[in-house]
């Protein structure tokens, strides 16, 4: 085994990922005087947060003064079908308004109410209009604001750099990581006593997804390999409205804001079918006629909510059922119609990027025609198991925030709650990591054999003369996850998926790449596959164990919720060594029990 020479850096806090959570964490640790760096696979400002459209959920009560954190907490827990970590949901609901106001003080320009405050819009599962927004490009506004803040504070940002492995010291504490620069292909080691994972999601393992190439579950895998635990990995959100045509953009997100602003779903018979899919849990607060639903848009006290604004899991399953029943559109989706319901001027002002996106990519004018949409893999509720207050994992020095962390959203996330999650827990991760370092933790020596082994594994594909292409393996993985671990699952297909994941792992160990190491996408993909396979395995394992249907996890063979399973998380770990070909152990563990005070809020139906 050769001893690889590497460039080396030294920081107090290292943040992996430059989306909303990573940037917010960096602001916090820098403010507290810690030497902080961010590593990101892409350029600064390109992270998946820019794709968020509808808004950031915070009970500021600017539109409906009766809104408050308790209602937001209740909505979040009910949306997550009570699988949530209640403490995370509580902190999130309490702190979100302050985090949004803070963005404004850093230069964000949210849309305004008539009296000059931050305007809020309606979204699925939120009782009141709660989403602070900028048209339909709220994520861009958020990432730009945080990015500009980070840059003005002089934080080091190491761009286009991929982390291969976290390195722990002899006592199992975080010591640093090994990574490579994508532009040069050169390896780099970074020592830091505290690492914050803020790497986002896993969607790239599915065929139809709203996620970019970056969402390969790196942080999930890095954490698991380093000794941390993952929970709720079976809970994947399929967003109800992704584009379905042209095929090349299938999966691309269509904001829930379309429905929040009056858009309705229709099948090929022209029926507003969502009225037929209102679950008992939501019946009391959902309109039972089109007339009542339409009154609600103008005056929330004149009717109950339209069923199009049920939580995302409910809507996605309904669309899936309609298409399977033969009532779909020519390209296998359903119709999303705002053209017949709002003026062209309103649509262009409220939904400018949707207008642009359909016009340029599909040749569809959404002010005149219906959109064709269908479910798309969008978000993973599951993730790294963390302490709610500090975001600490069970590995000393390792923290996680944002989509990579699990617990906050339970089995289904409400729209708008991800952006507020990034802010609330990004800040808490920065605090948690800072407190850990301030308490005197120093980075131990980087374990050289671990570093060298990671580098050897990364460059091995260059030496294989006739191995398989990483693109072929990625393609087969996406087909497998889409067909066997998709929106509706069965035990047989899930067990088959595990066998096939083993085969894909064996093929990955034999793949080959050509060309130089400098900016080589084929090689970059080869180094992403181990993470993709690791998280896909955990998702399949969680889905096999959860023999019920709940939120973003639907079992055809177990179509209803099971009260007992609603009390546990399935926890994944790798006790006998971390790696994509090592064994994953999955055990049920009780979810934290809601305190009596919070239970009262949950039971309050008013």
């Amino acid at each position, binding site marked *: 085994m050769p001893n690889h020479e590497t460039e080396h850096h030294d920081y107090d806090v290292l943040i992996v990922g430059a989306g909303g959570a990573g940037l917010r964490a960096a602001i916090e640790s820098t*403010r507290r005087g810690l030497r902080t760096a961010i590593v990101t696979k892409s350029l600064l400002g390109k992270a998946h947060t820019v794709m968020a459209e509808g808004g950031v959920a915070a009970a500021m009560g600017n539109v409906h003064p009766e809104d408050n954190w308790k209602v937001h907490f209740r909505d979040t827990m009910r949306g997550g079908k009570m699988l949530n970590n209640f403490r995370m949901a509580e902190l999130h609901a309490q702190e979100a308004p302050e985090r949004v106001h803070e963005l404004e003080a850093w230069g964000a320009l949210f849309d305004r109410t008539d009296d000059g405050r931050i305007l809020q819009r309606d979204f699925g599962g939120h009782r009141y209009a709660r989403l602070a927004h900028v048209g339909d490009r709220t994520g861009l506004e958020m990432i730009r604001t945080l990015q500009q803040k980070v840059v003005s504070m002089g934080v080091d940002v190491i761009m286009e750099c991929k982390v291969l492995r976290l390195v722990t010291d002899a006592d199992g504490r975080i010591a640093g990581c090994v990574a490579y620069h994508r532009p040069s292909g050169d390896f780099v080691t970074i020592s830091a006593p505290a690492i914050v994972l803020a790497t986002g999601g896993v969607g790239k393992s599915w065929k139809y997804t709203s996620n970019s190439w970056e969402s390969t579950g790196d942080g999930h895998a890095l954490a698991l390999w380093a000794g941390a635990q993952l929970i709720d990995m079976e809970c994947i959100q399929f967003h109800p409205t992704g584009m379905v045509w042209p095929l090349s953009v299938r999966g691309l997100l269509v904001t829930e804001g379309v429905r929040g602003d009056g858009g309705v779903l229709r099948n090929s018979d022209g029926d507003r079918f969502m009225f037929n899919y209102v679950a008992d849990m939501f019946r009391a607060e959902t309109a039972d006629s089109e007339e009542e639903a339409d009154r609600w848009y103008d005056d929330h006290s004149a009717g109950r909510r339209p069923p199009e604004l049920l939580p995302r899991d409910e809507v996605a399953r309904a669309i899936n059922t309609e298409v399977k029943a033969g009532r779909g559109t020519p390209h296998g989706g359903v119709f999303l119609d705002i053209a017949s319901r709002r003026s062209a001027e309103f649509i262009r002002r409220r939904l400018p990027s949707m207008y642009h996106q359909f016009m340029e990519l599909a040749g569809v004018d959404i002010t005149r025609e219906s959109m064709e949409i269908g479910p798309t893999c969008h978000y993973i509720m599951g993730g790294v198991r963390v302490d709610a207050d500090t975001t600490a994992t069970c590995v000393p020095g390792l923290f996680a925030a944002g989509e990579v962390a699990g617990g906050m959203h339970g089995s289904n996330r409400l729209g708008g709650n991800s952006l507020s999650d990034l802010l609330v827990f990004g800040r808490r991760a920065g605090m948690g990591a800072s407190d850990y370092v301030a308490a005197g933790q120093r980075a131990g020596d980087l374990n050289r054999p671990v570093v060298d082994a990671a580098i050897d594994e990364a460059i091995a594909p260059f030496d294989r003369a006739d191995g398989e292409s990483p693109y072929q393996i990625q393609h087969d993985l996406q087909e497998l996850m889409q067909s066997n671990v998709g929106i509706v699952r069965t035990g047989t297909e899930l067990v088959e998926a595990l066998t096939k994941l083993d085969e894909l792992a064996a093929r990955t160990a034999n793949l080959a790449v050509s060309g130089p190491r400098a900016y080589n996408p084929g090689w970059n993909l080869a180094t992403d596959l181990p993470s993709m396979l690791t998280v896909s395995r955990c998702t399949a394992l969680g889905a096999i164990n959860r023999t019920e249907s709940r939120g973003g996890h639907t079992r055809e063979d177990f179509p209803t919720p099971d009260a007992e399973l609603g009390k546990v998380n399935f926890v994944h770990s790798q006790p006998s060594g971390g790696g994509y070909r090592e064994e994953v152990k999955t055990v049920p563990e009780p979810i934290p029990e809601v305190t009596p005070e919070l239970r009262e809020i949950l039971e309050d139906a008013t």
Partner: protein
Amino acid sequence: MTEELTLRVWRGDSLGGRFEDYRLERVEGEVVLDVLHRLQATQTPDLACRWNCKAGKCGSCSAEINGKPRLMCMTRVDQLEADVITVAPMRTFPIIRDLVTDVSFNFEMAKKVPAFNPAEPPEGGYRMQQVDIERGQEFRKCIECFLCQDVCHVIRDHDEHKQHYAGPRFFIRYAELEMHPLDTNDRRRLVREKMGLGLCNITKCCTEVCPEHIKITDNAIIPLKERVVGANYDPVAWLGRVVRRKKVRSADEASVQPTP
């Protein structure tokens, strides 16, 4: 019958390179980035290009398509009129590999922008009217694709200007901060003396290529030029400053970053 198309892609690195032709099947509805991805998966696994969102929102996949600076993810193949599609890297920035360029010039310029610096918020938070922030919101639609920087001849044809010219992307950033109802800094002398605003001779090439349709020249650069002149010579602007109680700052005073 399957139709074919020819993709002519620049391949190479900082030492040099050449255009290479690839033939592929035409697929309905594809954008140029889709074709490159198919090329990577089938013929050239190491072909380098940047991309992320594939939805025109992140600004990563900028290139020059048939000579025109565009986003590869928003350029439909069936709307290009030539038989051969030529894809070249942005010319203004140094090449890393194939279609990927070193855009660090932009990140260096971003570091020099003195951040938003508001007064303390009043009780109950800041108030702003929609009409007062609409222009700022237009500028904040910028996805940092840097196509405006690429096409700006001040730096496209004169590498030496990169030392002292912020470029259109950052002129809209300075304009946004100048027009922000809550900001307290005054960056006009900074933008004139250190950021090279005067070098722009308003040919509007930047506005033409902006995928977000931001009116860079008309709504940002020209008003900024007027304000900069006003900072020095205009008695009406002087009066306006007195009313707004905004202190005139020298370039050096203005360039200090606010305390975090």
